[in-house]
């Protein structure tokens, strides 16, 4: 563990490393970087559109938006394989998109249409696509953390080389199952990459008021799980941490725990009036630490993209979302006569 901490420290020191040097050390090609940018832009547009659709009265129920957290989703997806298994949390749109979900089907599920991933039965909080190894989001905070143990166990028993990525928030880390699961995952050396997406608030509860010792990831020490805590708004840093973690996990050495420090721009859900944080704090994250803005700046300075190209990609991402809304809105509602379906397999 000490080694890990030293590495983190070294990492801080080499933070002055230029973006160019960093991406060349990580062998990230320009097109890959552009792909990261496109993924983040797509997530951002999805979330902005979700907010608009809600305001227009087109969303039944609530939603949990991940705008501001795009770098975590994009960084993970680049560091793991397409066939790896994914367990998501309630603020999960970004992770689904980064994993390559069909955005039309996501949007249709989001507004409760029959063509949605889950025939309108799940909505925003329960999007799942088992064919693409996307095991679903969870409406119960921490609910997926122990299920990852089972996925990891099955992968181990079936002698497969996929891994399970399980993402949860800072709030979920204080659920009892977090501790049960960490213990069992480490005990059985299961192939699980646990990612705590610390966006500073569990609903309204500041992580510093909810958690006795930070960073959350240091709890890995208690279970003999290697860990890292990284800037979740730096997509390349997220990628690097996840790559190291995923390699460790895939090599059969057991679980790895990465915490990403990030921030959500929208409230916890739609009923949130942001009474627990200041406008200044939100603006500070938006103006100075936005993951997309920071990454765009690097791409422009390194001449990987020029402004027109960046704008073009952003426009394309927006169009994907606009088309998804068209698809979803043109889709039928579930037939009411099917209300009793899907209770039993």
């Amino acid at each position: 563990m000490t080694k890990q901490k030293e590495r983190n420290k070294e990492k801080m020191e080499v933070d002055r490393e230029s973006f160019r040097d960093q991406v060349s050390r990580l062998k990230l090609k320009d097109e890959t970087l552009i792909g990261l940018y496109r993924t983040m832009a797509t997530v951002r547009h999805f979330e902005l559109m979700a907010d608009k659709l809600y305001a227009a009265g087109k969303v039944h129920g609530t939603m949990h938006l991940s705008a501001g957290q795009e770098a975590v989703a994009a960084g993970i997806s680049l560091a793991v394989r397409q066939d790896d298994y994914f367990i998501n949390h309630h603020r999960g749109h970004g992770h689904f998109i980064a994993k390559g979900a069909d955005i039309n089907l996501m949007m249709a599920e989001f507004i409760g249409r029959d063509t949605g991933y889950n025939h309108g039965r799940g909505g925003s909080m329960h999007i799942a696509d088992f064919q693409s190894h996307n095991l679903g989001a969870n409406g119960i905070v921490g609910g997926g953390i122990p299920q990852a143990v089972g996925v990891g166990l099955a992968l181990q028993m079936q002698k497969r080389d996929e891994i399970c990525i399980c993402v949860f928030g800072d709030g979920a880390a204080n659920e009892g199952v977090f501790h049960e699961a960490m213990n069992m995952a480490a005990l059985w050396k299961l192939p699980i990459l646990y990612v705590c997406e610390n966006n500073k608030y569990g609903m309204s509860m500041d992580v510093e008021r909810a958690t006795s010792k930070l960073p959350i990831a240091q709890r890995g020490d208690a279970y003999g799980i290697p860990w890292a805590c990284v800037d979740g708004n730096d997509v390349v840093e997220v990628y690097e941490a996840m790559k190291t973690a995923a390699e460790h996990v895939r090599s059969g050495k057991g679980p790895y725990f990465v915490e990403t420090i990030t921030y959500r721009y929208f409230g916890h859900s739609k009923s949130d009036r942001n009474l627990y944080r200041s406008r200044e704090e939100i603006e500070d994250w938006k103006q100075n630490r936005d993951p997309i803005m920071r990454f765009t700046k690097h791409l422009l300075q390194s001449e990987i993209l020029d402004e027109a190209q960046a704008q073009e990609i952003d426009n394309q991402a927006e169009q994907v979302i606009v088309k998804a809304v068209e698809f979803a809105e043109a889709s039928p509602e579930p037939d009411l006569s099917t209300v009793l379906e899907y209770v039993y397999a």
Partner: protein
Amino acid sequence: MPEISYLEAIRQALWQEMKRDERVFLLGEDIGRYGGAFGLTHGMLDEFGPERVRETPISEATIVATAIGASLLGMRPVAEIMFMDFVFLALDQIVNQAAKMHFMFGGRTNVPIVIRMPGGSGAGAASQHSQSLESILMHFPGLKVINPSTPYDAKGLMLSAIRDPNPVCFVEHKILYKTKGEVPEGDYTIPIGVAEIKRPGRDITVVANNIMVMKTLAVAENLAKDGIEVEVIDPRTLLPLDTETIINSVRRTGRLLVVHEACRTGGWAGEVIASVVGSPAFDYIDTPVRRLGGKDIPIPYNRGLEKIAIPQSSEIEQEIRDMVEGRI
């Protein structure tokens, strides 16, 4: 046909299914060398090894969650909750997760798991190791709840439970573990959701589960000597409940008594009675329908107190006589 115990019948089902299907594995606390708290998995570690007889830390929620996660990747786990009372620790995973996944994910996946849990009083285990909680589990669509009373039913229903594509709570009764009965050595299944008339009779329908089936059958033998013919129905599965068999029986007998060990208030008898009186069988009922449940108290430790906390044979007999002889 060989005679084996209820406990051996369940072990035989697990054993044979693990031989037949390599996706099946067991997980739970102390199920290895110790053989489980009641010795049900005795010998299975040596036969199948620690991978498939997987001992876990004392983490009930994660035991069930592990079963769920593994089932999503095609495994067929059978998880053990050592005492049914501990199921509360795992209820989020059973109710909010396992029971709902097929539905809320629009049929895109299913959760073929079995959760074994011994319940019931009579062992002097006091309030936190003696409950009959099957009524609670009936309340959750997506779950199946099985509650066998005989070794024959236990084996056949366990094989069905493991092969079922849905999450199944398999509720055993610790006092039944030693009861013996004829059980075929080979493979057979009993359909989930089908009640059985354990004894036909024309005068009254008594619906009972687990040990109350045994008690009621003994009472029925006694009453037959006095010319009272009791029809005894064992639902065997509580969810989905085979109301049709019960309704048809009441149409013949005109009387209904439900007997269970679970606390009377909120017990499954209420569900059975509501299903019957709300059906066309109502026209055939000529005596008020009745239920006998456990007293509305936690199970006490003291032997005498524990005994009278649940319906006694004498009470069942009196209730039936009163109903048939027109005193109620």
